[in-house]
């Protein structure tokens, strides 16, 4: 067979795969045991925020990095999850799994309708219509005083409960978020490596070609849209608990741009890239903001430089280094 003649990449690739898995297990373990290493309360809270952003960014990567659908309205699913979860936790029950079920149902309902409509379009139109959807939600958030609390938003959302036990903020909440992150990552990894994931890739590469090999492009765009909103909704649910509330500004297109920037910065199409990018950016934000009130300038600059010189993002750079190191080994 041809593969035996070609220079060993296949066998090297296999143990490279195992090495990657090992790295993942180590990383997950480090993530989950992090609070035990004596980090301060503030760092843990910051990291929690970073992880939530990471979940949100991964959901966006699914849309943009894998399917090629650039959206400037990804705050929609996120904010919707936050509001639905917050409202339910305040008025009915803060039992986490129940809250999650409710918020995801709300997100799914809106996503199914919105997705059906937007999956017919692509490119610039898609970016702008999804932006419009998020803005509509923002306005509803501002106007629907009785439910959303208007400009003030939801305040005083209680801490989540897991089977009756309150999950305290700080270490416990961090652990919950970290576990969910790992689970979401594994699920998305499975999804993107499946034939469904490959189909999404095909759509990104050429919608026309994809249709010509029998792919129902509209259906797939619809499905990935809904899935990405669902995952974003999980992140939003976690956020509203962490921050004990939310405001309509969560739907702001600046937020959508921010998560898009983070995802690209991390590395499109890699899942891990956006996740790590989210953590990095969150910490960077914290550092920079103490020096530079207008952190947008720094972030904007870093973003512009990244897009021009490192379009494949952090992950791209990391993969290149990893590949080079691995190749010099074998």
């Amino acid at each position, binding site marked *: 067979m*041809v*593969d035996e003649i*070609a220079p060993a990449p296949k066998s090297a690739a296999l143990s490279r795969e195992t090495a990657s898995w090992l790295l993942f297990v180590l990383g997950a373990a480090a993530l989950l045991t992090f609070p035990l290493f004596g980090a301060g309360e503030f760092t843990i809270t910051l990291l929690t925020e970073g992880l939530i952003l990471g979940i949100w960014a991964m959901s966006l990567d699914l849309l943009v990095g894998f399917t090629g659908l650039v959206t400037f309205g990804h705050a929609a699913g996120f904010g919707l999850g936050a509001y639905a979860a917050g409202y339910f936790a305040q008025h009915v029950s803060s039992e986490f799994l129940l809250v999650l079920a409710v918020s995801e149902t709300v997100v799914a309902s809106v996503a199914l309708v919105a997705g059906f409509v937007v999956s017919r379009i692509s490119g610039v139109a898609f970016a702008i219509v999804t932006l419009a959807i998020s803005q509509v939600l923002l306005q509803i958030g501002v106007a629907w005083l009785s439910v959303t609390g208007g400009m003030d938003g939801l305040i005083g959302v209680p801490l989540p409960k897991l089977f009756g036990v309150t999950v305290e903020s700080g270490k416990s909440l961090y652990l919950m978020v970290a576990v969910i992150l790992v689970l979401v990552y594994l699920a998305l990894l*499975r*999804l993107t*490596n*499946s*034939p*469904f*994931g*490959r*189909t999404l*890739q*095909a759509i990104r*590469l*050429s919608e*026309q*070609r994809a*249709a*010509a*090999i*029998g*792919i*129902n*492009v509209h259906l*797939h765009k619809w*499905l990935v849209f809904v899935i990405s909103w669902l995952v974003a909704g999980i992140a939003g649910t976690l956020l509203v608990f962490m921050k004990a509330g939310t405001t309509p500004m969560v739907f702001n297109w600046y937020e959508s741009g921010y998560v898009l920037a983070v995802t690209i910065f991390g590395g499109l199409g890699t899942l891990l890239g956006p996740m790590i990018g989210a953590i990095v950016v969150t910490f960077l934000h914290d550092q920079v903001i103490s020096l530079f009130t207008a952190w947008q300038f720094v972030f904007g600059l870093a973003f512009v430089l990244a897009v021009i010189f490192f379009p494949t993002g952090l992950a791209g750079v990391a993969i290149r280094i990893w590949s080079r190191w691995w190749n010099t080994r074998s």
Partner: protein
Amino acid sequence: MEPLVEHPLLIRDLTKSFGGLRAVEGVNIELCPHHVHSLIGPNGAGKTTVLNCVSGFLRPDTGQVVLGGSEVTRWPPHRLVAAGLVRTFQITTIFAELTVRENVELAVRSRLGRNLDVIHQASRIRQAQDEAEEVLGWLGFLEKASGRGDQLSHGDKRIVEVAIALALNPKVLLLDEPMAGMSRSEAERIAVLVRRIADKTSVVLVEHDTETVLSISDRITVLVQGRVIAHGAPDEISRDAAVRKAYLGALDVE
């Protein structure tokens, strides 16, 4: 005329206009099983428009497309593919970032109905790998199977397009100028391939190279300015006065 047998593909009275322009009018084509039926005509005659209308990328204004006895007019592309109607493109559009093998495996997985499969690992689906191997072997393309789509020569890309099409097990294959931009020898290679493909399926070939077309076709339909001006066997066509007029002597056959 052929004895009564079901035509794999029937195109009846196909008409398509763009704004005020009548691109295609009253086109009729009857494809016979295992035939290579060529569609020729000068530039702008509407050949690609016909293909687009038949393969679901354009909606015809009037007319019918009948695939294996069922009417499929206005079906979307993916549905037509599932029913066995496959096409290639004039401008090569294989998946550039994927390897040749991955390109073909993708097509096979699609055919196997795996597009919504979220459970399995795509790279481990044996059947897709085996079938892709088979198709590439049949085309004699195995050595180049690990090459990336965007690193292939133009001629090779065209063959990959054909590989993808074959991987979809077509009952009817529409080839849109597969020999465009190829050298003489490459074009000959494709021509031989097209004849071999006709053993497996039925082919509608849109091509400019009239010499090749005359030598490999069972039937030819000539399109000029959107209308059929002649159809029949190659020797009939090369003798047809209207066709000669349209091509100004380019059809002299020894």
